């Protein structure tokens, strides 16, 4: 465990103590087996207590954990024979988005996902997972191919947001995102979106219009980052923790607001603790969702997609 979050420190301290006692028992005549058992019980309680009751800001930190699995990690675990394709055929290849086809349980599927790096070098290469217009256009190209060849589409969402840069504006960042929303709305193949880390604003949504939207337990999905919200609302980016609570950005919040279809559990301590187990959890949900949608005609699929989005929002019709 190389990267420890603040709220995990009590767990780590206790683990260190247990390790110490074990060492003493092994290296000397003193038998501490009973004490170790007690402490291990305490550790289990502590872990349940901490990981079982994560606050919104703690989940934000989990979602941003440098070791958190990325799209490519899940692709390798869940799918077979993934072939990645590059470039949008207009401008360039944006490595902040990966796109390709693979087998899922012997059936071809199209996969697109945001792609972060896990260290500085990778992050520079991937622009910290913040796509440029060409990234969204690459994704769209492959989603259109998915429709043509009748493959379901699986989207992994994991971005702080779309790239905020001069050139992205010049090349039409707004148009690229808007275009994806519009086109995804009308694709006649099932689209399943899974938020695996941070779902940041329009940059996340541009891979996020689908028939089923799921979130990993410790992922977030929001209109703006907690830091951004704090700066706008209270002129103080330091109040991000408060903003994380006020803005309601956790998987549980989004389920409550009826924006997502389900929450995918994470192994104790987060996805990065056991990626194989995490992949199994995702796989179960994916399989069920695809099974449910297998029988839908094109018309049914689009009608249900419209019904789904039509229902999102809060308003009254008894105004002045």
């Amino acid at each position, binding site marked *: 465990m190389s990267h420890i979050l603040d709220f995990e420190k009590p767990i780590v301290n206790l683990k260190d103590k247990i390790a110490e006692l074990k060492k003493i028992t092994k290296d000397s005549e003193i038998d501490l087996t009973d004490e170790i058992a007690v402490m291990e019980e305490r550790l289990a309680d502590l872990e349940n207590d901490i990981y079982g009751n994560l606050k919104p800001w703690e989940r934000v930190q989990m979602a941003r954990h440098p070791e958190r699995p990325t799209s490519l990690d899940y692709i390798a675990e869940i799918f077979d024979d993934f072939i990645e394709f590059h470039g949008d055929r207009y401008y360039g290849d944006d490595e902040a988005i990966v796109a390709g086809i693979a087998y899922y349980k012997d059936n071809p599927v199209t996969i697109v996902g945001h792609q972060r790096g896990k260290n500085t070098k990778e992050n520079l290469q991937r622009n910290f997972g913040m796509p440029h217009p060409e990234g969204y256009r690459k994704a769209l190209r492959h989603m259109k191919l998915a429709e043509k060849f009748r493959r379901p589409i699986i989207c992994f969402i994991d971005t702080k947001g779309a790239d905020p840069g*001069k050139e992205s504006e010049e090349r039409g960042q707004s148009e690229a995102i*808007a275009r994806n*929303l519009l086109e995804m709305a009308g694709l006649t193949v099932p689209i399943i979106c899974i938020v695996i880390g941070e779902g940041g*604003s329009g940059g996340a*949504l541009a891979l996020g219009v689908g028939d089923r939207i799921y979130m990993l337990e410790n992922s977030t999905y929001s209109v703006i980052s907690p830091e951004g919200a704090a700066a706008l609302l209270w002129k103080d980016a330091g109040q991000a923790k408060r903003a994380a609570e*006020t803005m309601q950005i956790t998987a549980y919040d*989004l389920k409550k*607001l009826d924006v997502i279809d389900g929450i995918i559990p994470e192994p104790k301590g987060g996805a990065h603790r056991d990626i194989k187990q995490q992949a199994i959890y995702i796989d179960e949900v994916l399989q069920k969702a695809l099974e449910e949608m297998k029988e839908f005609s094109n018309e049914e699929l689009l009608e249900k997609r419209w019904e789904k989005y039509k229902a999102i929002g809060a308003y009254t019709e008894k105004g002045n």
Partner: protein
Amino acid sequence: MLKFGKKRKYATIPGADSKADVPAGLMMKCDACHKIYYRKEMEKNLYVCPNCGHHHRLDAWGRIESLFDMDTFEEWDASMAPTNPLDFPDYEKKLEKDREKTGLNEGVVTGRGFIDRQAAAIAVMDARFRMGSMGSVIGEKIARAVERSRENNLPFIIFTASGGARMQEGVLSLMQMSKTSVAINRFSKAGGLMISVMTNPTTGGVSASFASLGDYNFAEPGALIGFAGRRIIEQTTREKLPDDFQTAEFLLKHGQLDKVVHRHDMKQLLATLLQMHQKGGMQK
């Protein structure tokens, strides 16, 4: 006097002063050239400065009046109003304040009417209401207007003016981008004509959804249009941005707009376009 007649190239976001300026007072000062005019004169000129041509903010009803044939406009969903889904502190108070200020329930007016005797549906955003930020009501009213356009075979025109997302409605605000996009997709597949006109400012989530989804995308001169805010871009990239960055003219130069249209030419252009899409064309 040197400033007079010199066209300002960069986008202006009206400050708190100019906001206070607009509804009250007999006189009005141009935001760009600072020349003073009678409000009546400005109003008659659709709030375009007679001296320098600067386009000031036009509220939703002023816009509708400037486009639709007299007494033909019929409003939709006028009573729809926002709630406070996240229990956001002070949100209701802010809404109430803007309701009083503008006489609107939300920052968009939708409906149908006739533009030069041709039927059209429209959604006009009003930046005076919470900076035109997109909450659930904006999304719902626009989605309904698009659906009704589809059902009634009407062309759909939208005038956008928005600072982006409505913070106080969190992710529900974000999801209005998808909701409206799904509606527009249905409309477009049915052969509907959509014209988008971006006015000052059109940024963030609105620029990254319906504002950019017209079959034709226009903008008013000098309008600020963009996805990310200038300050964010400067902070992130530490790059000096050109003065005209994210103006309508900048977007036009970069191939992101079909046309920049002066407010005085708007009705005529829309009327001509509506006509061109009614007659002729290929059989479906």
